């Protein structure tokens, strides 16, 4: 501490150390937030449902996705990544997950939404197991913080079924 640059160095290193500590505390404070998100997805229409030339089933859906994710946002939240996956069981795989739609929610103001959309990514099966298949629509999300730990969770919505015939 006896010269100017020794003191400047000491202030800088101690300040950065404390900055790391308060960022860690900010991350820990997220654990006191217990989010209670709601989501509701309606399958409005099966636009088409066919077997591809290579033998895989493909279906096109029109969806209405409405969700209220505002309770996920804390002071330490940078953004929330959310995606909707169709999940079903087939003889080859005990769990198939096909991402149908995703989005990045930049702020709390945009966290309550209702979207009318066709599936953004193609709903293709590995095989031809989709006819009459019951499936779940699961809304997954990753809460991305400004500093610290990332949280991930999901809401499973059950009771959807694909038609028995191609159309």
């Amino acid at each position: 501490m006896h010269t100017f640059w020794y003191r400047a160095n000491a202030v800088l290193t101690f300040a950065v150390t404390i900055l790391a500590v308060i960022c860690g505390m900010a991350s820990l404070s997220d654990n006191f937030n217990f989010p209670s998100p709601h989501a509701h997805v309606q399958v409005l229409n099966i636009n088409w449902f066919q077997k591809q030339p290579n033998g895989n089933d493909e279906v096109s859906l029109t969806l209405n996705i409405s969700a209220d994710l505002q309770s996920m946002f804390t002071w330490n939240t940078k953004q929330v990544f959310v995606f909707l996956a169709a999940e079903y069981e087939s003889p080859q795989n005990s769990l198939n997950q096909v991402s149908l739609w995703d989005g990045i929610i930049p702020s709390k103001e945009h966290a309550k939404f209702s979207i009318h959309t066709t599936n953004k990514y193609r709903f293709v099966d590995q095989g031809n197991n989709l006819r009459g298949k019951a499936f779940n629509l699961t809304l997954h999300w990753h809460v991305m913080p400004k500093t610290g730990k990332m949280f991930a969770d999901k809401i499973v919505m059950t009771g959807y079924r694909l038609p028995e015939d191609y159309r």
Partner: protein
Amino acid sequence: MKKGCDDITLSSIHYPSISVRSDSGKKTLFEALVLCFQVEMDWQGQKLSELLMQVMLVGFAISAFVTGYSMGSFQMMLLVYAGGVILTTLVTVPNWPFFNRHPLKWLDPSEAERHPKPQQATPAPSKKKPSKTHQK
């Protein structure tokens, strides 16, 4: 006191290695600035500046976290803390006069000559012997 520089508080600093004093005995602004940045502060000052630095930084960190959390704004936390760091730097890094209130009182050279160092009883041979054997 040394010649001519007892008109300001920095006069208490007398390190032989630093020769920023002008011959006329009056400091220019530049010289005063150089003193502020280069001259070492006294022991009590160093202790005080380190304590001040730690207390101020921790204090600002706590208040920054409390403000940021209560306002729900991460940016506000960073702003408060950044302001605190700048203020702490300004207070503790430059060699302010209040860090130099306890100067070391060195003996005047003429005074030191009147009290010579006591001679050691067996000065030369005991020291030279090991060095010679070592050389061989």
